[in-house]
């Protein structure tokens, strides 16, 4: 039903409502809704309006520049791009297996990023909706409002993120856009002082992460009617899983399941991702629409990210997060949970896991080792895949004999979720807007559905708090008949 809402039969006869830009998400996008005279919804689209061009302009550049250059795609999770590119280039320089120190330092950097990004998303961007209600007073529905009403929660959000950023700083040299990973390994290890500084804080970071899981679990369970159904759609899902099917953000093989949890493929070496995944281009968005080749465009789309990962893995290797995963799986009743708002719950389980892994790594002396680089037989092509905060991230490069990039293909996490986000907003539009007068609170419902996926719409820019939002109702002749705005 909602799939049909992608394109209206006679758009020229419909009024257009635009949410432009979508606020409290990373990057810039807009939603357009076409309504008839009875306010019935005929078309809903999430448009990604930015054009970046990274795949093109890195062609002709030396390959060792790429991990530092491509991370500029994003200011929130640059580490994901930095590491995915480094992993692809590891293949090219013949570094089949990194030194233990290099791999653990990269993991530390990545899990630090997972912690900071998840904290940012949950506390800064989404907690206002979850704590105050989707159509609560718009002047208080922001992080400043949270700080006033729940100062301890807001403070923890800030400090959790700060800790994650510090982990990145000591491994990459800077909190944002560092240089730690290089093809074949790392350029720095930790000093004892850097490690000890992080060890001072890690125990309460783990404790606060446990509290965050409890908080979202309580919010979710208190209103199952809303949280289990808001924007719900069924879909396939995909992630990488590590050794023995463990939840793993840094390395593993590709696993995909259908909406009932049945395996579509498993144990796939991501060097061969293009045998399993294809991308479709649509004229109305700069973001592509990936799908599983075996299922085709219409049935092969999927979701990625925390909700996919936590339900795709066999288990989580750290005790507190594994306990929380089991609670989540029990709550879902043994079948995959598809409710978009369950992303928040699983995201906090992942944040807890990241904190626990950081704690384990900080007790490993390999982090202090200077044995950081390996190399081997040079290859001309490599693929790097990582689980970024928002989902599976693919970097694929070809390099010529003179060391210059000749081809790049990036499938970023949010691209994998493109169709899924469109589905969610269509369900919400149908459920909440259909036949009703459009209000700011109702439009925020659309944004709440998008935010659940934590999209990074440009993988670069950052829209925090009260973004300017303008909504106009335009009649078929182009006359504005009703408008709402906030600034």
């Amino acid at each position, binding site marked *: 039903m909602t799939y049909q809402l992608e394109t209206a039969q006679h758009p020229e006869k419909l009024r257009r409502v635009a949410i432009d830009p979508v606020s409290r998400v990373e990057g810039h996008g807009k939603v357009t809704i076409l309504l008839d005279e009875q306010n019935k919804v005929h078309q809903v689209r999430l448009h990604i309006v930015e054009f970046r061009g990274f795949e093109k302009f890195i062609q*002709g*550049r*030396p390959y*060792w*520049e790429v*991990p*530092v*250059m491509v991370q*500029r795609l994003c200011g929130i999770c640059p580490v994901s791009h930095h590491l995915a590119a480094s992993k692809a280039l590891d293949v090219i*320089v013949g570094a089949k297996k990194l030194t233990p120190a290099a791999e653990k330092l990269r993991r530390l950097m990545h899990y630090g990023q997972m912690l900071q990004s998840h904290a940012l998303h949950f506390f800064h961007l989404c907690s206002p909706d979850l704590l105050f209600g989707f159509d609560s007073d718009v002047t208080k529905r922001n992080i400043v409002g949270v700080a006033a009403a729940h100062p301890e929660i807001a403070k923890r959000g800030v400090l959790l993120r700060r800790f994650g950023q510090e982990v990145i700083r000591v491994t*990459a*040299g*800077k909190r944002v*856009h*560092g*240089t*730690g990973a*290089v*093809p074949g390994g790392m*350029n*720095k290890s930790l000093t004892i002082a850097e490690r000890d500084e992080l060890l001072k804080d890690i125990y309460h970071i783990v404790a606060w992460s446990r509290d965050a899981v409890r908080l979202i679990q309580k919010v979710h369970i208190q209103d199952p009617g809303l949280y289990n159904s808001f924007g719900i759609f069924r879909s396939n899902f995909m992630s990488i899983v590590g050794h023995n099917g463990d939840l793993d953000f840094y390395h593993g093989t590709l696993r995909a399941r259908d909406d009932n949890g049945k395996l579509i493929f498993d144990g796939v070496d991501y060097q061969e991702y293009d045998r399993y995944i294809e991308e479709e281009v649509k004229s109305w968005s700069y973001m592509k629409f990936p799908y599983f080749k075996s299922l085709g465009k219409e049935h092969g789309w999927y979701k990625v990210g925390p909700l996919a990962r936590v339900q795709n893995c066999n288990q989580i290797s750290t005790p507190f997060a594994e306990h929380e995963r089991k609670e989540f799986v029990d709550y879902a009743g043994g079948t995959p949970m598809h409710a978009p708002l369950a992303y928040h719950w699983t995201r906090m389980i992942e944040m807890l896991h990241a904190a626990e892994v950081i704690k384990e790594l900080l007790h490993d002396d390999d982090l202090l080792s200077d044995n950081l680089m390996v190399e081997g037989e040079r290859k001309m092509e490599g693929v790097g895949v990582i689980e970024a905060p928002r989902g599976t991230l693919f970097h694929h490069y070809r390099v010529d004999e*003179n*060391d*210059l990039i000749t081809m790049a293909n990036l499938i970023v996490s949010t691209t994998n979720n493109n169709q899924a986000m469109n589905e969610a907003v269509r369900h919400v539009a149908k459920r909440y807007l259909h036949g009703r007068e459009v209000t700011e609170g109702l439009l925020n419902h659309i944004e709440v559905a998008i935010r659940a996926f934590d999209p990074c719409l440009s993988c670069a820019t950052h829209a925090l708090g009260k973004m300017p939002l303008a909504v106009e109702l335009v009649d078929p002749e182009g006359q504005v008949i009703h408008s709402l705005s906030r600034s």
Partner: protein
Amino acid sequence: MSQTFILDGKTISFADGQTIMQAATQAGVFIPHLCYHPDFKPHGSCKLCTVKVNGRQTASCTMRAIAGMVVESDTPEINAERLALTQMLFVEGNHFCPSCEQSGNCQLQATAYHLGMMSPHFDHFFPNRAVDASHPDVLLDFNRCILCSLCVRASRDVDGKNVFALSGRGIKTHLIVNAKSGQLADTNFTLDDKAAHVCPVGVILKKRRGFAVPIGERTYDKQPISATAKAVAEER
């Protein structure tokens, strides 16, 4: 060293034949520069080291010190001109510090920081310059060339190879490789050449080692470029 001149109110000693730049550096006083290198005959082309001697502008790297002269260097007026020159160098080429492997080791970037440059100010030219990756060990990224001619002088005067030259005139001046094909692979250039190690920016680069030095340990992470003169003075 009994002769002296005055530089920004400070008495500087010098020996016969020394330039203002040489004497100032020996005394630990930094004068911004890009085309000057102590190992080579001065070129006087970048004009960043311009000072006022007895009220008249001159390049301090080429002007010999004279007893009793009064030199102004670190003044708001001269530094504003240096800043404008630096900004013009940035917009003439493609200097993308965020992804440049010389970031932190680059004299142009360090000089921009020293002069308090906050933006390029002028419109970017965005020239279309290809890289030369033909050599097995060295990459040439012409996008970053500031025409200091240090590689030209090093290859000609020290290596005896004449691998590099400046071609064209005025705004069209550009660095070329002396080979029929124009490719570095078709010259006898090697990594041991002096010319491989004098580039103040990020044109001549050893391949496959970019970003090997972590942030915090790069040349200008440890000290600003203005401290280089002090280091010379302390070595003496």
